[in-house]
């Protein structure tokens, strides 16, 4: 078991390394130099104005833009200067550390993403504020997805072939194809103070006068604001997961031990919930790895529409302002977060299901 965990973590480390490489490649796409302000190209103009020389200098330092890209091979060509002589090991060290990518990696390891072009605040601070809000939304959505999808899937499987089964299956299939931005706009138009009903607030997370409320009032206010965005985040994964639950249940019901249980004369209830359900529900854990990226990706649209200052909103705003440090940090962290979700779901699956073998889990 320990071997498995270590193996999984090692793979994850390789993947994380790949993620940093790809993020770094994206940075290189920047037209010319992201901080270039030479005469031919003119100063860097963003939507919020010209980037100041100070910020450019700071970014230049962060990304080390005057250095070679991956490895500093120049060091082998240089003849030792008048100063201290450069030995083999020293050169090797310089080769691997004094280039853009290793420097950038070093900054990331130290949780230093530079300063935002927009408001000069540290990127890590901005991200932390956004991440807290996004994670609350996503975890609430994830819990709801599982809490609703499992009973629905069981219902459809137990009543296989009946009106209920067909109804649930068709409705879920339709729901699965609904574009999230359309659902969000419809919810706002029809429930969120549009032309029709005004049940839920269409924007933000707190009401204007929330500071004056008691803590329970503030909690209710927060929940009231969360209803629409969480609904938007939930329905897609819900449809996806309950179809798996249904087919998983149907698979388990065909197994020999269910026939044995039936032959023993156990009640249908016991068979369904003690024998079939428990075996069908465990594999669902691995689907966290599939739903979580969807939740994070969907947060861009949902948070933008509902004006929630989370990660998705942050990258959208930074995109509009061409705020490169924030964009790169957020896209790197979102990928790392997805990777974390994958690892957690793999390990969790192994913990709850002792039958899982070493090579099955470690892909």
């Amino acid at each position, binding site marked *: 078991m320990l071997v498995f965990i270590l193996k999984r973590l090692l793979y994850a480390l*390789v*993947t994380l390394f790949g993620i940093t490489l790809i993020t770094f490649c994206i940075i290189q*796409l920047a037209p010319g130099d992201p901080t270039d302000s030479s005469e031919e190209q003119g100063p860097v103009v963003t939507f919020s104005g010209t980037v100041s020389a100070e910020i450019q200098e700071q970014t230049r330092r962060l990304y080390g833009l005057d250095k070679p890209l991956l490895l500093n091979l120049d060091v082998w060509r240089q003849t030792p200067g008048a100063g201290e002589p450069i030995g083999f090991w020293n050169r090797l060290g310089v080769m691997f550390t004094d280039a853009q990518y290793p420097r950038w990696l070093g900054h990331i390891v130290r949780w230093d993403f530079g300063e935002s072009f927009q408001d000069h605040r540290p990127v890590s601070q901005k991200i932390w504020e956004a991440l807290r809000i996004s994670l609350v939304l996503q975890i609430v959505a994830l819990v709801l997805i599982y809490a609703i999808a499992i009973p629905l899937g069981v219902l459809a499987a137990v009543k296989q072939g009946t009106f209920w089964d067909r109804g649930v299956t068709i409705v879920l299939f339709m729901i699965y*194809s609904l574009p999230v931005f359309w659902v969000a*706009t419809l919810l706002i138009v029809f429930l*969120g103070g549009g032309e029709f009903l005004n049940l839920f607030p269409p924007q933000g997370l707190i009401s204007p006068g929330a500071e004056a409320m008691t803590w329970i009032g503030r909690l209710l206010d927060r929940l009231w604001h969360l209803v629409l965005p969480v609904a938007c985040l939930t329905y897609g994964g819900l449809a996806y997961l309950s*179809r798996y639950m249904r087919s998983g249940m149907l698979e388990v019901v065909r197994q020999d031990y269910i026939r044995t249980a039936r032959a023993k004369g156990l009640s249908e209830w016991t068979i369904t919930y003690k024998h079939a359900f428990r075996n069908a529900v465990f594999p669902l854990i691995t689907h966290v790895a599939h739903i979580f990226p969807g939740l994070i990706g969907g947060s861009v*649209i949902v948070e933008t529409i509902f004006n929630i200052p989370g990660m998705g909103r942050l990258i959208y705003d930074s995109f509009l302002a061409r705020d490169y440090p924030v964009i790169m940090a957020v*896209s790197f962290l979102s990928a790392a977060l*997805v990777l974390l979700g994958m690892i957690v779901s793999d390990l969790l699956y192994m913990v709850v299901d002792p039958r899982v073998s070493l090579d099955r889990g470690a892909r």
Partner: protein
Amino acid sequence: MIWFGGRRKGARDRDPPKSDPAAPASGASVPRHAGGRRSDRLWFRFRQRRLALASLVILALLLLAAALAPFLAGNRPLVIVVEGRLTFPVLQALTRDDVFWLAGLGTLLVAWPVSRLLRSFRAFGRKTRRSPRATAIVLAVLTLATLAIGLTWPERLMHDNYLEYRDGLRSAEFCLFPILPYGPNELQLHNTLQPPSLDHWFGTDREGADILSRMIHGTRISFIVAFTAVAICLVIGLALGCVAGYFGGAVDSCISRLIEVVTCFPVFFAVLAVLSFLPPSIFWVMLLIGLVRWPSVARLTRAEFLKLRESSFVLAAKALGLPAWRIMARHMLPNALAPIIVAATFGMAGAILVESGLSFLGIGPIGQPSWGRLLSEFRAYFEVAWWLSVFPGAAIFVTVTAFNLIGEGLRDALDVRIQS
């Protein structure tokens, strides 16, 4: 198991074709198709699912609407007779896009009968009776012709004001407008934010443009993006998946890591990050969607190839000394295609969702109408104009559902076990 798109060489080594469990026992058509061509068998099974069939019809209609957009919705008369002179303004005003789509539609309609005709000739008969080579040749020639016409078509601007005929300010002897006589970019500033009516079936937006007209012209972007992005996914995913599954070992684990790395990037975050460095163009959007979404194809291909490489017909091909690329392309790939085709169909639905989501956020081509961009206008007017959000969204929903239903139908017809 059903094979298509290639020869059946070696396939007999695998488990013998099962009798069709999905086909009902009723009717004489079962035995007729049991030994028929595999595309016939596939079609026969696909037809059993009424929803999938209906979706196919819907998609065909949408494609037709996309190709014939200027004839369905536009502010130029199809035919007009003024002072005894007969002119076709709509033809004179065709843009490069219009020609491209019309020629593409022509290609599709012509390719099938022409390839049938070619097959009937003796000269082609021997080789092409079994392989789809004739179809491929005809399709390639016609596609090239389409590209040639589309790319060399001169952009024209017509300055005649035909709106005066439509609005009754001037009269002609005979004048026939498209069913929807409003251009997608025609701004009627006196007609802003009109609710749906007989004149404007789906209402007008804040600049007075007819929403239905914009939606018809916006169909093109969705389909172009769906096909191109999925084509890019297939090229990358098939190539990497084949190599990983065929060679295994170190190559496989390298490519598997790459697959996992790309999977980790949430689509919207990756696309936004890259697009922030690039000019807004539909080309980049398509390319990026393809670049972000290929891992699912690669994973499926790899899994199929890992299964197939153990089979005896691959061993036989290896023993014959065939080069690796030939074994992969001619022996293994045709047998691995079924799940990939299903995944590609689901992928088209996904690509449309991503594209419309991006244009909803205001990212993507400016100036061309697209469904997502139409929907994004609801923002400022959600208190007064519900039609701005209902109709464009419904178009996206219908198209995505149709693609998903076809994917389901194909999955059942091909007897594949993958989930969307």
